[in-house]
């Protein structure tokens, strides 16, 4: 079947008539859009706005400080590679590791079990970040550690829930978004229901898409189609991977291990019920309780406009620090750190402000 990216792009040019602003919520979408140069093939009527869907970017400074403080206290701290370079006042996991502290890269949450066995006489802490796609792995780790009676393992649960953030943006009168490209993998877990508020409450198209360039273009095309036809809906164009009901086992595990809590999103502020904390039966695995950590939400670095970038109010080249004081080597804000942070992606891939 002749669906390839260039032909979708061509089609999109034909159907897009009214100017639209569409937000891609997910950082993986952001990066795929930049790396494939999608912006350069879109019709001028279609404006893409990058959203807060990079777990690195939205992890609050206070949360990073908490992880570093545990390193300082002698714990082994395990984290996904994505988190290593994120700076806060006290440094980063990478800079702590370079001073000989035990920050370890893991590629899966379950690797933390072996670390806890290897360092049986030390505290091993997992820095749990990410959205609903990632949180089930942490939940499974905690459940398994509980089953095995492992005593030296705990978790800093800084996981975040996507729907509250998306609703905040949908409701923002300044943004005037025309629709949302929704994160395919979050929806693999959550299903369709948590995003139905988009068409039902705000009259906005919500399209769940995969991450290949052609899948993204197809998702965008469907948002345009919904607008052109005046029929906003929630739809998945990600094939059979996303089921309407999501992944029941994953949802059950999240329900078993976590409860909602108010959580600070870096650059955005506290969003009610947008975080996941360990429930009472698992509180012995809660590193915040175990080490008596009280999170202090960080203040954004002076001059950094991450909050506006993360909510799509400005694009990075509009930040005065972009490419001058703020580069991937010495990032001012977290959006510049991550490979999928909006500022980082603009810096690396965007020709617009250079030619």
């Amino acid at each position: 079947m002749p669906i390839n990216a260039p032909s979708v792009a061509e089609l999109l040019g034909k159907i897009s008539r009214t100017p639209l602003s569409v937000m891609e919520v997910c950082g993986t979408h952001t990066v795929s859009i930049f790396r494939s140069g999608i912006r350069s093939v879109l019709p001028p009527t279609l404006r893409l706005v990058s959203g807060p869907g990079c777990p690195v970017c939205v992890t609050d400074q206070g949360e990073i400080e908490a992880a570093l403080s545990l390193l300082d206290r002698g714990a082994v701290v395990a984290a996904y590679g994505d988190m290593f370079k994120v700076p806060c006042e006290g440094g980063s996991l990478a800079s702590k590791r370079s001073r000989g502290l035990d920050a370890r890269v893991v590629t899966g949450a379950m690797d933390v079990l072996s670390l806890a066995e290897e360092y049986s006489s030390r505290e091993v802490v997992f820095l749990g970040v990410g959205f609903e796609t990632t949180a089930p792995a942490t939940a499974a780790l905690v459940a398994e550690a509980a089953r095995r009676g492992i005593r030296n393992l705990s978790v800093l649960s800084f996981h975040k829930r996507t729907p509250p953030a998306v609703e905040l943006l949908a409701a923002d009168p300044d943004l005037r978004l025309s629709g949302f490209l929704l994160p395919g993998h979050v929806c693999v877990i959550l299903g369709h229901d948590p995003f139905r508020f988009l068409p039902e409450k705000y009259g906005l198209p919500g399209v769940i898409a995969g991450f290949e360039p052609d899948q993204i273009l197809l998702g965008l095309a469907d948002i345009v189609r919904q607008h052109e036809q005046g029929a906003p809906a929630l739809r998945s164009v990600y094939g059979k991977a996303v089921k309407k009901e999501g992944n029941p086992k994953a949802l059950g595990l999240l329900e078993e291990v976590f409860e909602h809590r108010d959580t600070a999103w870096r650059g955005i502020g506290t969003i009610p019920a947008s975080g996941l904390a360990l429930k009472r039966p698992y509180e012995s695995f809660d590193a915040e309780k175990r080490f008596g950590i009280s999170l202090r939400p960080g203040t954004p670095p002076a001059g950094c406009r991450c909050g506006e970038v993360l909510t799509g109010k400005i694009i990075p080249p509009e930040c005065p620090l972009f490419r001058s004081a703020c580069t991937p080597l010495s990032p001012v804000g977290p959006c510049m750190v991550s490979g999928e942070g909006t500022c980082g992606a603009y810096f690396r891939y965007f020709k617009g402000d250079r030619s």
Partner: protein
Amino acid sequence: MCLAVPHTIKEILGENRALASAGAVRTEIRTDLLDDVVPGDTVLVHAGFAIEKLSPEDSEELKSLWDELRALAGEPYAH
């Protein structure tokens, strides 16, 4: 947000553990989040966990979307 890569199940290693391949890569994954995973299944893996099974693409939905878009563009149906 969440890199996830399709893997093919090669071997069930025990409760919630399987050997899988992603292209030429062989790796051990967790299957806690899925029921009834069997060798040959294609699953989407994120952070070491299979988060969903992928069925052989049913093109009907995609075909109908494509048709809708072409109609909107005023192009004739190609099939």
